[in-house]
Each structure stands twice: as C-alpha cells, then as structure tokens.
C-alpha cells in the first residue's frame, strides 16, 4: 500500500525517540570532556622511552633499530660518549618528530631491548605551541610503573631486565621462536 512504508519508517523513528529517554543502549553518546571512555590497553598514542623506576636509567641502548624500522623516519638519536671517551650504551639525544609519526607501532616491535612502548595520551591540542613538535629525551621518558598502569599486558611482556648477570638473558620469557620477531606488545 502506498503510504505504509512511510508509516513504518515513522514508527521506527518514534520508537527510537521514545526509547532514547529510558534505554541506555539507545543513547550511546559519551559527553567527552566530562565523561571519558576508558582507553583499551593496546591504544597507540605516541611512543615513549621507558626507564626503570629504581635505577632511573633509560633502557634504551641507542642501537638505532627503531630509527631504521620507522616508515616515516621520525626518530633521530645519537649514542652518548662515556667518561673515558668510549661509546656508552646510552642515548645522548633522542628526538621524535610528532609531525611525522603516524603512531603505527613498528618501532616498538623492532626494539629488541623493550625500551619503547605506546603512550595513551592523545590530548596534545594546545592553544599556543610553546614546545616544538620534536620531543626530546626528557619529554619522552616515562617510568615502567606508568606502563604497567596503562598497558599491563605489554608491561609483563617487557619484564624489567634484572641486574647484568650471566643468567640475565634466561629470566626473560623464553622466546617462542629463536630469532623470530618476538611479539612484544
């Protein structure tokens, strides 16, 4: 009949109108600044450098693997010089260009020393941009406890390395396949 389909349409919209007042699953809008949806642990913000809570030392050994793995070449880092002139296994400068980074997470997968993880802060909008978009070491470093809080599953995968003992390598969870890319995050 000619008008029936239109009436059905109106019935559906009316039902939605009425139900949106008492059925929670109809009204799904989250009032963003006041209410917030909990971010899933695997959410990929920008990467950050992990440092052990107690020793405060960065886990990064400046091996440049993450810089090579990044499709958008947004990571630059230089190795620090020790007191006796020999290269020390610490980054002296580590800059991440936020303008280029597309938050794909390949750097985290490429890092064998589990020194990188994906952050959860996405509210980077500022009215005036004092700090340039290139983050240095001090803006990138986060404690390991922060990682456990935002992404527990990745945290236990990147278990903190015990002191440099011979058995150091074994404490890490046995890799499922030798040399294969360890699924870390």
């Amino acid at each position: 009949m000619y008008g029936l389909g239109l009436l059905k349409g109106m019935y559906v919209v009316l039902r939605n109108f009425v139900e949106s007042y008492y059925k929670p699953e109809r009204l799904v809008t989250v009032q963003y600044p006041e209410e917030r949806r909990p971010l899933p642990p695997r959410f990929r913000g920008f990467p950050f450098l992990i440092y052990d809570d107690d020793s405060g030392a960065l886990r990064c050994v400046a091996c440049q693997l993450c810089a090579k793995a990044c499709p958008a070449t947004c990571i630059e880092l230089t190795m620090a010089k020790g007191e006796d002139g020999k290269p020390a296994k610490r980054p002296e400068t580590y800059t991440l260009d936020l303008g280029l980074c597309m938050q794909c997470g390949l750097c985290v997968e490429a890092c064998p020393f589990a020194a990188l993880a994906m952050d959860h802060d996405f509210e980077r909008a500022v009215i005036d941009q004092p700090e340039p978009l290139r983050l240095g070491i001090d803006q990138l470093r986060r404690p390991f406890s922060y990682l456990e809080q935002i992404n527990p599953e990745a945290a236990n995968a990147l278990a903190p390395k015990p002191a440099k003992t011979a058995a150091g390598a074994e404490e890490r969870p046995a890799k499922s396949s030798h040399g294969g890319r360890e699924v870390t995050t």
Partner: protein
Amino acid sequence: MDEHMSANAPAHDPELLDTDLLELSIGPQHPSTHGVFRMVAKLDGENIAALEPVFGYLHRCHEKIGESLTYLQNMPMTDRLDYICGPANNIAYAIAAEKLAGIQPPERAEYIRVIMTELTRLVNHLLLVGFLTNDLGAFFTPVLYAFREREKILDIFEAITGGRMCTNYARIGGVARDFPEGITAEIRTLIDAFPRFLDEFELLLSENEILQNRCVGTGVLAAAAAVNAGISGPVLRASGVNYDIRKADGYSIYPRFDFRVPVGQTGDTYDRYLVRICEMRESLKILRQALAGLPDGPVQAKVPKLFKPPRGDAYGRIEGPKGELGFYLVSDGSTKPFRYKVRPPSLINLTLLEEMCVGHKIADAVIILGSIDIVLGEVDR
C-alpha cells in the same frame, strides 16, 4: 533588434527553442561526493546529458613510496588506501606478500584474518547504506543509527589492534598480535545483537516508498557492461552476476565456511542497497562459524626479520567490501619491493559512472555515485 529574435524565424523553429547545456561542476568541495571528487555534468534542464568524473585530488604517490619502504614498513601505509576498511587492506597486502614468498600463516592467524575481514565488511556496508540514504535526503537519521553500530565494531578493532581505522594489524605470515582476553565474548554479543538492528534498519528503509521511488530503476547497470568494465564486488553482484572471490578463488580458509552470496536482479540502485544489506547478514553467519572454530596456537609463522622474498612477482587479491582488492608485488630479491601495484576496486567501479548517469537527473547522479561506494584514498592512491 536582438539578433536571436530574427523577425523571420518561424514560430516553431526547434533550434530557436532548444536551450544550450548548462555545465555544472559538482565538487571537489561538495557535500555529497564522498571526498575530493569532481563530476563535470552537462545539464539539459535537470537531466544529465554528459558527465565526466575528474579525480586525482588525493593522489599521494602511494605506489612510489611503496618502492622505497621495506615490505613490513608498507603495512601501515596500506591502512591509508581505503581508510574505511583498514584491516581488509592490511590482510590483502599480507596475502600478496605471502604468495610472493610462499609462506603459509598458522591456523589461528587465518581464522583471525577471516574475523577481521568480515567485521570490516560490516563497517563498510553500514557506512555505505547510511550515507546512501543521506544522499537521498534522509537527514542523517539512518547514518547515525548505522554509526551507532559501527562504533561498537571500531571499539573492538581498537581493543585488538590499537587503532580504530588505521589498524596496521596484519603481518607477513600472520597477524601482529593475538586477540586480547574477552574480545571473543564482545564480538559474540555484537553478532547476536546485530540482526535485530538490521531488521529495524530494513523496517525503516527497505519498504520506504520515497526511497523506492528514487532508487528503483535509477542507474541501471547491465550485467554484460559490468563484466566488460571489470567491475567487481557488490556492484557486480547487484547486476545479477554471481561472482564472489571468496567462492571463486576459495583463498585462505573461506571454503570451510558455508555462506551464500546475495545476487541482485536488475542492477539498479535499489538492488545495490539490498545486496549490501543481505551481505551483512551473510557476514554475520561467517563470523559465527569462525568464532566457533577459532583454534589455539601461534599467530605468526617464522619470518626472518630482514624479509627478503625470492625474485619474481605475485598477485594476491581478496574479496574486499568494495570489490576485488588486489596487490601486485614484483621482488628483485632485496628487502624493498621493486614494483608495488594496488588494484583498487573503487577506481574500476567508477569507470561506468557516465553510462549509468546519463539521462537521469542530478539528484540521481548523486545517489548513483553513492551506491557505487567509492573512497578517494583508494581511487587516487
């Protein structure tokens, strides 16, 4: 005297009364061209006499960049092709690379890939049907109902892969990470609730007289013309051709699932709408079976870190939500592909836009374009 109104022109001289064609350029900034896409239409009154699609505004040298990145670094780039179906692009690229190197992903990874592709199909069809009715003029109501469901699926994607649309989830030889705990339960609740939503959606739209008046008989695409133009996907099936790559190739583990392929009768816009609604129901069937049969085990085959496929080329394709999405990779033995070509379904489905639109009105051209379902990221690459 005005030179047109020459005194001796006979009263009914047709030349005198025919109007010249009004050339109207629809786009690139236009609310209903689904991205930066331009249609130069020559109008005779309201009817379209000629229509020339103009695109290329979103060209980003995707394939040239692909030649300077390693196979793994290309993976996040494929998200940006058809930015609505992120996972499907990743998986298609992974399949092509595996065919090149002859790698067989483990069982669990195959099941996860099927689940992710079918969820992407739901996301894409929801978005399409919503925006098709929005082009028809239904002021955002169907779009917002469809988006309410789509958000649930995107939340699942975010929990699994970390990104809602740019997922970067597949890897050569499997998938990047295993499912987090509890996600299969979430997917199951989504699948159980989905048919009720689809019934309500069909109740709102399928028998709507105005929608039928507007869609039935507009933009008819004959089966022969579609096959000749290489059109694939729901647009082809709506014209009555029963060709679905999941059935034709039987790639990955699709032969294990029993599902049916909806095929339209006349190939007009209403058929394309109906085929997509039925495809959503079929995807639900596949998802239910895939979830039931999800085995345990590793999610990634052994692939060397410096992935160097042997010399040679390979063409891998999947039945993407928009049609046959194919990747052609030529390897010269190095870690970077020598040639990286994408076969985008949107671009090829766009070739017959003029034949479908000529003779109709502008309002029809807009919904015909909407029913073909193009995404400019994929068309321009």
